[in-house]
């Protein structure tokens, strides 16, 4: 296994008798923020539990940090923080007590435990609730505490199962920033399952889609959307766009369509097809478009993949996957 891979599944099957997940092959490289997508019952949580060594695969191999999480549980789980779905945290403990327990399980020196507890409570905005019993905290606070306990000991890998559930918009934005800053540290990897496409689109640089425990597709958001939708739509906001410039962009090789997004000429949507250079690498048209806008004297405000693109790709991918499944039966 490459040292760069944090999580690796090879032909993993989990057979529950009534239900079977897999065979699943996937890998996650260091330093990525990976969105793990799939409908309810597709095997996301099962896959996460396999990664953490909470359940055994019926066949195949799972590796976390290069170790088998069942046979080498301690080594595999070192530097890994996990926040479970709908966290059920010990209601009789206070956040401070829970974090102290987690710090003990990580064998942090006694002198560092208090400081670490303070750090993570501050990170998730729960400092003033340090001494309140978990049973008295709101759902959103429990969710934040769950993230806090995952971040004790400064892990290198964060595994998050639906981390935004129960959070208000401010809480969601706060945690998004927490995850982003975490990923900025060297080798910091985030693996999060979520149903919230906007969140995944905003936060992740890589997505993995599964259905019935099988990999549907994976790649960067632009790769995945282009692969599924056949094109990548980009929304550009700029002032001073001229009809001549728009015509030039429309005529660029790889651009299939250019439309106004709404009524304003200052917001356009450009659809592009995937193109590769002679070496087989994907050609990204965005730098070229940015260059054309800037050279024309127009002011560029934003350039980003169009909203809901991932959601559309996700829905399309799942319907194709379901169709393929039915067809194969």
């Amino acid at each position: 296994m490459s040292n760069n891979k944090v999580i690796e599944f090879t032909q993993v099957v989990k057979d529950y008798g009534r239900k079977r997940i897999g065979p699943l092959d996937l890998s996650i490289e260091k330093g990525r923020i990976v969105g793990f997508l799939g409908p309810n019952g597709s095997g996301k949580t099962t896959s996460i539990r396999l990664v953490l060594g909470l359940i055994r695969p019926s066949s195949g191999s799972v590796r976390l940090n290069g170790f088998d999480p069942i046979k080498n549980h301690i080594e595999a789980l070192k530097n890994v923080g996990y926040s479970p779905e709908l966290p059920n945290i010990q209601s009789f403990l206070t956040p401070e007590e829970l974090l102290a327990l987690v710090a003990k399980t990580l064998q942090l020196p006694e002198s560092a435990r208090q400081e670490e507890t303070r750090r993570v409570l501050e990170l998730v905005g729960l400092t003033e609730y340090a001494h309140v019993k978990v049973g008295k905290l709101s759902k959103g606070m429990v969710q934040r505490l769950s993230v806090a306990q995952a971040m004790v000991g400064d892990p290198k890998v964060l595994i998050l199962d639906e981390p935004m559930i129960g959070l208000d918009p401010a809480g969601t934005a706060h945690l998004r920033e927490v995850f982003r800053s975490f990923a900025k540290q060297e080798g910091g990897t985030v693996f999060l399952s979520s149903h919230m496409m906007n969140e995944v689109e905003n936060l992740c640089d890589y997505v993995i889609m599964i259905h019935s425990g099988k990999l549907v597709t994976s790649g960067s958001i632009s790769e995945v959307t282009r692969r599924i939708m056949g094109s990548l739509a980009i929304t550009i906001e700029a002032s001073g766009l001229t009809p001549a410039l728009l015509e030039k962009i429309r005529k660029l090789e790889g651009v299939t369509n250019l439309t106004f997004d709404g009524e304003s000429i200052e917001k356009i949507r450009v659809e592009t097809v995937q193109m590769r250079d002679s070496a087989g690498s994907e050609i990204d048209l965005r730098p070229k478009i940015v260059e054309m806008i800037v050279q024309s004297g127009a002011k560029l405000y934003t350039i980003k993949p169009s909203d809901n693109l991932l959601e559309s790709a996700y829905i399309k991918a799942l319907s194709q996957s379901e169709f393929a499944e039915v067809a194969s039966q």
Partner: protein
Amino acid sequence: MRLGIVSAFALYEIKRAIARKKVLMLIAFVLLLDTLPYYALATSSAASIIPSYLYPYIWIAGVLIPQPLFIPFVSIFIAAGAMSEEYEQGTAELLLSKPVSKMEYLMGKYIGGYLLLLLILLTSNIVSLISAYLSFGPQADVGILPGAYFVNAYASLLFFSVAFMVGELLRRASLAYIFASALLFASTILGFYMDLIYTLTRNEFYATVQIYLPSSPVSSLPVQYISSNIPSVAQQLLSALPIGGSVEPSILQSLFLILAYSTCATVILVFYFRYADVSRRVS
């Protein structure tokens, strides 16, 4: 096995068990059981029925009476929920996703639960002694109390281990309480019938069955220990207590049976926990 982590889980388990209202109620009940009967005996006409030469040994009643049924019942309440409640509440997943071994988690919870039981037993014994002193004056041969405490603690291991195993196997707290309690009561009732049939028929088979029932060594061992360490004048008190039958295992048999039952339960517990998946939240 890292002791620091085992002790962290042990402390966690004690805290968890104490946070449960039913365990707190049982502790309160133990204290009532160790005080009210003495007070009632001392202040009613019943006190005159007890020969005054037995007054210095009345503490023995408080130490022995809860042992056959009540202390095993407390053991079951602590042990049956130790694993199963964590599965039901989904909290096991959080702890086992840390870099700790399953054995560290299991040992910590087992030791923590058992330490809490020992603490309750110690409190019960001390409160009994104080109540006996306050109600019947100075107590004699108190030097054997530590020995009696350890014997009681050893005997309590049997139902504690069985209930712990049942909780892990069933992974449903209420089912585990019911099953382990049913085992205790069935064994006690069956022992009573076996004893009765043996008394009537003198058929050794019934005596043997009674000896090997799990409740038999648990109730016999503490009586046998105290009986062999008090003067003959105090034996009268032991025979008046509603403990034991006409057939009892020997001390060695009791020691062996408790060890055998506890070891079997613990081996099954360890084997199952090591190889079974960690259940998701079930209720």
